[in-house]
């Protein structure tokens, strides 16, 4: 095929393009649908926190949700750049992992102030660490699929990095849903289990990115 022929074909009857509206809508849909689905999966499996699990503690729930909200907002802002070729996002990429680090340090400080080993162990393992470790990636599956769908409408050129951030945002959505069940209220618990599981989701996303996002 001659290139001139292709150019003729591509430039014949072109449609005007609205300024990036399509991408914003796709992201909005992915976040809302993914988040809602994640919450429903939580309700259907482990359910809301019961009175037996310690009842409702707004302060820790707010802390967990705030932590995840920072990751979701930061990650989405980064994704919006990653799907546009040629936009530099190196600095932001590292900054997005900062909240996890901050929480980790806060967790260590909280542990250091505990007098006994047994108290530390109770703080770290809580009552349902295994449920937490299992549920966050599980709740992240639907948001991840939704985000991949949205990202495929863009043009990501660094697929590993884009996949990692998609995994991070999906993990954060999953963790936010799990927070409504989570009966464990301690900083070290949030730092270790929430932080680690969100990072695990980011790692999975980085591995899957090159397969799922290729175009």
């Amino acid at each position, binding site marked *: 095929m001659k*290139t001139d022929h292709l150019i003729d*074909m591509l*430039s*014949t*009857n*072109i449609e005007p*393009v609205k300024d*990036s509206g399509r991408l914003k809508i796709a992201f909005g849909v992915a976040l809302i649908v993914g988040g809602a689905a994640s919450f429903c999966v939580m309700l259907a499996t482990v359910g809301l926190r019961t009175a037996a699990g310690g009842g409702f503690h707004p302060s820790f729930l707010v802390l967990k949700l705030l932590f995840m909200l920072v990751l979701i907002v930061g990650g989405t802002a980064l994704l919006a750049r990653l799907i546009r*070729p040629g936009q530099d996002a190196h600095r932001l990429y590292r900054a997005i992992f900062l909240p996890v680090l901050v929480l980790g340090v806060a967790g260590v400080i909280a542990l250091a102030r505990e007098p006994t080993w047994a108290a530390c162990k109770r703080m770290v393992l809580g009552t349902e660490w295994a449920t937490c470790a299992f549920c966050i990636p599980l709740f992240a599956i639907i948001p991840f699929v939704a985000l991949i769908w949205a990202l495929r409408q863009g043009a990501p050129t660094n697929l590993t990095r884009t996949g990692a951030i998609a995994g991070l945002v999906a993990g954060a959505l999953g963790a936010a849903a799990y927070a409504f069940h989570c009966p464990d209220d301690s900083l070290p618990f949030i730092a270790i289990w929430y932080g680690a599981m969100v990072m695990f989701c980011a790692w999975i996303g980085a591995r899957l990115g090159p397969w799922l996002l290729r*175009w």
Partner: protein
Amino acid sequence: MDVPSSEPELRALMTAGLVGDAIAYKMLLERLSSQLRAYFKGQLNRLNRGPVEAEDLVQEVLIAIHTRRHTYDRSQLFTPWVYAIARYKFVDYLRRTKQSIEDLPIEETEEINVRDDGAPVESSLDLERLMTSLPLRMRQAIQAVKLDGLSVREASEQCGMSESNVKVSVHRGLKALALQIRKKGRNDED
């Protein structure tokens, strides 16, 4: 990266193309195709690979630019956007044609280089054959709107589809064509 002197002009053409100026858009693609040809020839030459492959890449990138043009942010520079796509497609191309790098004997490529006099070459892509792999409606829509140059309304009457269906079919059809081209590298090895 260094911004070439062609940036303001290319950006103006792109901006005009995005609001539907077909003449500006055609000029843009012509200008880009010669820049991209020089870029890919230079890159491929170092790997002892010929001008036909460069032309394949030029065409693949032109289609990518077209089908992903909504990802260009009008407030940003245009050249980095184009080259990020070109680099991405180049790396992707090398990855999927890895086999043929090792298979290519050096003597043969020298011969190709000697014969490369800069004249326009045809790519190895066969549009008609690629078109046959598309679903019927997409093929009809592309044939009518993009090859025969009918308006969307005329095409919708001819194909018996609604106007918005024609637009969607053209858009999806071009994306499907891009996918076929990408897969071609793998099929050739079979």
